[in-house]
């Protein structure tokens, strides 16, 4: 009898150990393979579209640019910024989600679900209405502020509740805040007749990405992701629980502040380029954690790569699934993300 129980629990325990362990090999594989797949995805994405352009032409357009050839123009001005924008926002949203999930030990954390994206979006609506001539640099700063305000409201309401801050409560507060802010944004858009400028915000798309936006966004995203990687050791400790992290001598307040700032920068700058696209920050960190284990030193860079890959592929799907019409990227991601969310919301055990 006792032997039976031993054999019964043995494999289970081993499985748990495997799950808890970090897998550097898998992570390295993902980093290398993911980057190769990403390069392929970018190449395919650049050559596919309303006008099919052969890969050699793409190569020439990038390295031997000739402004007289229409195809070169299309690639330089339309497709490249778009796909690079996709790479950046994919990485940003995914890393932001990973940090949020790790720091708060909340499996449902995602900048879209927590009201951060809609806060940034509402700030953009206000900027379009009241300061239409603000340069993109200023726009991004307002988006950061909006993202911060959104997060503050959602966490504030979540923690006001009797019974404390639960993941589900945060999601519900986020959903209500998003409903409120998108209603207000729509009102602002109607009042100031800026519906055209704001149209991207509802649908969420990277079609209109411009080089100048990428140039301004890139340093922020780059520094923030580097910061996230630098912070990753502390995030791993926090993900074990705040008490444990404190016991190990960590100044948790400082780490949380730094993490929050990184999240706001990543989400805010991405929203100011593509609008409120959700679910990337939910799906990718879970997937990555499943693949590479619980060490955030691996989770964060792998999330960045996989997030970029997801957005590039989703955008490719959005452009090709219905020829001639562009399906909003946000809708495609929601269709992938919702079943995943439902699965997570149902799951009994929460492993972070």
């Amino acid at each position, binding site marked *: 009898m006792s032997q039976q129980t031993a054999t019964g629990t043995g494999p289970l325990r081993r499985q748990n150990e495997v799950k808890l362990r970090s897998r550097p090999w898998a992570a390295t594989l993902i980093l290398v393979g993911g980057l190769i797949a990403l390069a392929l995805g970018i190449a395919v994405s650049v050559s596919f579209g309303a006008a099919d352009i052969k890969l050699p032409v793409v190569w020439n357009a990038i390295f031997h640019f000739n402004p007289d050839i229409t195809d070169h123009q299309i690639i330089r001005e339309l497709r490249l910024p778009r796909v690079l924008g996709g790479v950046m926002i994919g990485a940003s949203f995914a890393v932001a989600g990973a940090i949020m999930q790790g720091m708060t030990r909340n499996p449902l954390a995602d900048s879209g679900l927590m009201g951060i994206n809609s806060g940034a979006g509402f700030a953009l609506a206000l900027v379009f209405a009241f300061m239409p001539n603000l340069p993109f640099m200023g726009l991004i700063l307002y988006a950061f502020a909006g993202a911060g305000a959104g997060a503050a409201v959602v966490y504030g309401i979540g923690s006001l509740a009797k019974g404390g801050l*639960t993941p589900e409560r945060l999601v*519900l507060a986020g959903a209500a805040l998003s409903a409120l802010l998108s209603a207000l944004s729509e009102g602002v858009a109607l009042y100031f007749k800026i519906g055209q400028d704001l149209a991207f915000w509802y649908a969420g798309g990277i079609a209109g990405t411009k080089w100048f936006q990428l140039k301004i966004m890139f340093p922020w995203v780059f520094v923030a992701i580097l910061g996230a990687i630098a912070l990753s050791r502390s995030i791993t400790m926090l993900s074990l629980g705040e008490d444990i992290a404190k016991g190990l001598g960590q100044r948790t307040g400082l780490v949380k502040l730094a993490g929050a700032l990184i999240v706001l920068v990543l989400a805010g700058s991405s929203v100011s380029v593509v609008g409120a696209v959700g679910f990337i920050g939910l799906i990718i960190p879970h997937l990555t954690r499943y693949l590479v284990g619980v060490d955030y030193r691996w989770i964060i860079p792998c999330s960045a790569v996989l997030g970029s890959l997801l957005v590039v592929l989703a955008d490719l799907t959005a452009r090709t699934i219905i020829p001639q019409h562009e399906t909003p990227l946000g809708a495609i991601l929601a269709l992938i993300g*919702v079943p995943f*969310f439902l699965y997570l919301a149902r799951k009994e055990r929460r492993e972070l």
Partner: protein
Amino acid sequence: MKVRKQKAISFDEARRRRGLQVLAVLSALIAAVFVISMNTGYIHLTPPQLLHTLLGRGTDKQELILFDFRLPRIVISILIGAGLAVSGAVMQGVFRNDLADPGILGINAGAGLMVMLLVSFYPATTAAPVFMLPLVAFVGAACTAAMIYALAYKRHEGISPIRLLLTGVAVAAGMSAAMIVLTLRLDPDKYQFVATWLAGSIWGTSWKFVLSLLPWILILLPYVIYKARVMNVLNLGDQTATGLGAAVTKEQFRLLGAAVGLAAASVAVSGGIGFVGLVGPHLARRLVGPKHQLMLPASALLGSLLVLTADTIGRWILQPSEIPAGIVVAVIGAPYFLYLLARTRS
């Protein structure tokens, strides 16, 4: 002992009297907003003009504006407000969940998806067979409700309130996304329709929409009010209700069916207006107490008042452009939802 009993009766009686007063005041308010709403719009009608037109002595243009544009829209606002609010009241009662609302639970989105599919098979949005709309919406809403129930249900645990809401919110997001993808596939021009539907604009604004909605409201609303006693008993909890002789599962099923029907028929002719089913019943409970005999009619009136006021404000505030009623309702309802969320225990 005797005095005490008398006191209890008089308390009940006082509550009933107060409840009737509240209902009267609400009806008067609706009548007032009704009149204001008839005056509101791009083309202004003065009260004397309005009176003349109503008595059949106005110019053709005035008659056109009043009878063909404003009145049907006002009537529709009143009907869907009542439908959505009572639907929310029933859901809150059956699930014993303070935050339930057909919009938040994703049932409106399911109805909307089916409406969208039906509409997209016809060249012009208005050419769709109007009487089919509530029926098709009901099918969509019922399927969605079943799906949400199945997804939120767990063996040995049943349905936890928060998980139900969470599932509903997610399903609603998925349905909206599916709506965008599917309609783009069918007809790019329908995108505008989807956008206005999602924003919660009252789009069916002629008498035939009123006629298609009216039977649903006229049958289901009295049915639910007739079941008020059962709902009082259900509120006591499954075990107590069974002990008192109620066929709990059967009654819950019937009531939910009625609630889904009310919500579906309402959103079939309007946009996806959320939060009415949340705010209406809550205010009603505060005003007339938890007994459903009074609470349900009060919810209906409050819902009508809310949607009618929202639609009037939406037409008035940004003339000549309009703000969809759903946006105005969301601006009122979402903070209320947050407030309730902060108050309820997990």
